[in-house]
């Protein structure tokens, strides 16, 4: 068992570095860039009763490096969760190569899982146990000695700000608290990689920001984060690098900034005209940006200088009801790559 031989930190040192000890297999993104996760032509297909044969992942290549926060972005059904389950070494691959921490999940599943933290999309906390017991029992699954798991559970409660809720039943916690507890639970084995499947879906803005803050701290401590999300702001906040997945393939890859640069312009001018005028108006200004998109309620002009676009529009005698110039976001990239059509 390679996972627990680092349990020998002296207690005194431990108290001083209370937070950093949460995840102590620290490593910055190092020069060698050794791959924590590497996939080549990774595929997943399965039989679904309602949909027949499903090809959820159709051959993707990924490399996740030590210490980075890596994101999977994509609409529902893009294959993110299937990919995550394969990375979590619980779902066998249907083709291609996959290596996690240098090991093959088909051969070394338990050894890999011993070094992963998993925060699933749906809470799988034990509702009838109290907060502390949820952590304690989970730590025992990893074979962590009782006293040690006690200490870690206390530290983690502190870290996710749930110390006061120590003896509360899980069913009495708010959604945000449950998420934080799930994250604490996923850290009990001091994982090398933390997998987060849509970590903030369904949370209110306050709870999301608390969670982001905690995840950011983990990242600073060198934990490799792998996140799936369909929230663009989340991806921009947390991810160093991400892939946009669509229908089982990778549509684009890079840092948030790179993606915006490659797939969008620096700025977007949003113009609102009286309803019904949009198509006709768009034709008159189609040369103003590198791309013009007509939406039911507004026209988007993609350009590196939004103010310039507005001036031109006025010079041409057009009078929009409302205008807005903003920077391009990942959302623009995302919609460009995956389309505006509803997936399900």
């Amino acid at each position, binding site marked *: *068992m*390679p*996972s627990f*031989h*680092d349990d*020998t*930190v*002296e207690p005194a*040192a431990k108290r001083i*570095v209370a*937070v*950093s*000890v949460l995840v*102590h*297999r*620290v*490593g910055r993104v190092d020069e060698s860039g*050794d791959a924590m996760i590497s996939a080549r032509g990774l595929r997943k297909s399965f039989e679904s009763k309602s949909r027949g044969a499903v090809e959820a992942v159709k051959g993707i290549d990924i490399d996740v490096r*030590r210490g980075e926060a890596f994101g999977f972005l994509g609409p529902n059904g893009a294959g993110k969760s299937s990919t995550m389950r394969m990375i*979590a070494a*619980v*779902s*066998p691959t249907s083709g291609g190569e996959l290596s996690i*921490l*240098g*090991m093959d999940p088909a*051969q*070394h*599943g*338990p*050894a*890999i*899982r*011993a*070094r*992963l933290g998993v925060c*699933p999309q*749906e809470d*799988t*906390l*034990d*509702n*009838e*146990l109290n907060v502390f*017991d949820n952590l*304690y*029992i*989970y730590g*025992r*699954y*990893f*074979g962590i000695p*009782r006293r040690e798991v006690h200490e870690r559970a206390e530290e983690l409660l502190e870290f996710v700000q749930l110390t006061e809720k120590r003896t509360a039943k899980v069913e009495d916690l708010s959604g945000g608290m449950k998420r934080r507890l799930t994250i604490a*639970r*996923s850290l009990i*084995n001091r994982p*090398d990689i933390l997998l987060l499947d849509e970590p903030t879906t369904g949370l209110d803005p306050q709870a999301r920001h608390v969670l982001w803050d905690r995840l950011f701290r983990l990242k*600073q*401590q*060198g934990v490799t984060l792998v996140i799936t999300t369909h929230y663009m702001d989340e991806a921009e906040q947390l991810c160093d690098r991400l892939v946009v997945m669509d229908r089982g393939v990778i549509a684009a890859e890079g840092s948030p900034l790179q993606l915006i640069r490659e797939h969008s312009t620096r700025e977007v001018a949003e113009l609102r005209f009286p309803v019904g005028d949009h198509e006709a108006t768009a034709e008159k200004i189609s040369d103003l940006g590198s791309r013009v998109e007509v939406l039911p309620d507004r026209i988007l002009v993609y350009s590196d200088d939004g103010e310039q676009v507005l001036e031109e529009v006025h010079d041409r005698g057009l009078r929009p009801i409302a205008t807005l110039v903003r920077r391009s976001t990942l959302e623009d990239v995302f919609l460009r790559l995956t389309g505006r059509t509803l997936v399900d």
Partner: protein
Amino acid sequence: MVSTGSTHQGISTSSTVGSGDSGRLSPLTGALRQYDYWLTVYKRTWKGSIITSFVSPLFYVLAMGVLLGGFVHVSPARLEGAPSYLAFIVPGLIAAQAMQTAVFETTYPVMGALKWHKSFYAQLATPLESRDLANAFLLFTLFRVAATCGVYFVVMAPFGVFESWWGPIAAWFATMLVGMAFAVWTFAFSAHVRTEASFGLIFRLGLIPLFLFSGSFFPISNLGPVGETIAKLTPLWHGVNLTRMLCLDTVDWSTATINTVVLTVVLVVGWYVALRTLARRLAQ
């Protein structure tokens, strides 16, 4: 932020790529790592389980064995050698109780772990495998069966229904065998079905007919030749017969061997099916 030198040591070794060790736990380690979980579950539920597993069986003994049995006056020959109806029915009731406890522990709780609490999925994200989850679950079921039946035997002892001191002890192991022979199959069934409505099938078509017609309440020779043959095919009859022979000290060793072998085969095959079924379900 970055921690001490000693932890860095940990990093370099723990991250060694391409470890040859699969990290698979032995079945024993896999099950033992869940000891604290099941202990916590039991601490939470034992009070409620007392009613179902200890009190209601005693009602049966009182109603059927003592009160109804007061009307039953037949020679021991017609009661498979039992000196009284109470002595006849108690081993049958305990064997049936083993079955009921086992079935109860492996229906709703299994569905809960898959569907409601999803605790199986949470456990699967650790070094544990589906095999370990099933084994620990079944071990806890064994504990519940052993505890329930054990108390049953102890409480019945003063009623003078046992013919030897060692018989009930051997019979206690027989009831564990009965319980587990049912537990593994019910577990497999529960790991396969999607809704709890399916359990009605087990209770109505399995549990109740077996309970009534497998020789707990009357000798199966009363069922007529065809009925008797059918009853002898049921695992519960083998369990009831074995338990009763041991309690009444009327052991026919060739029959006892057949009973034991049948129950063991049912248990071993069912165990295999249970492990496979859960593994398939969790891989979906």
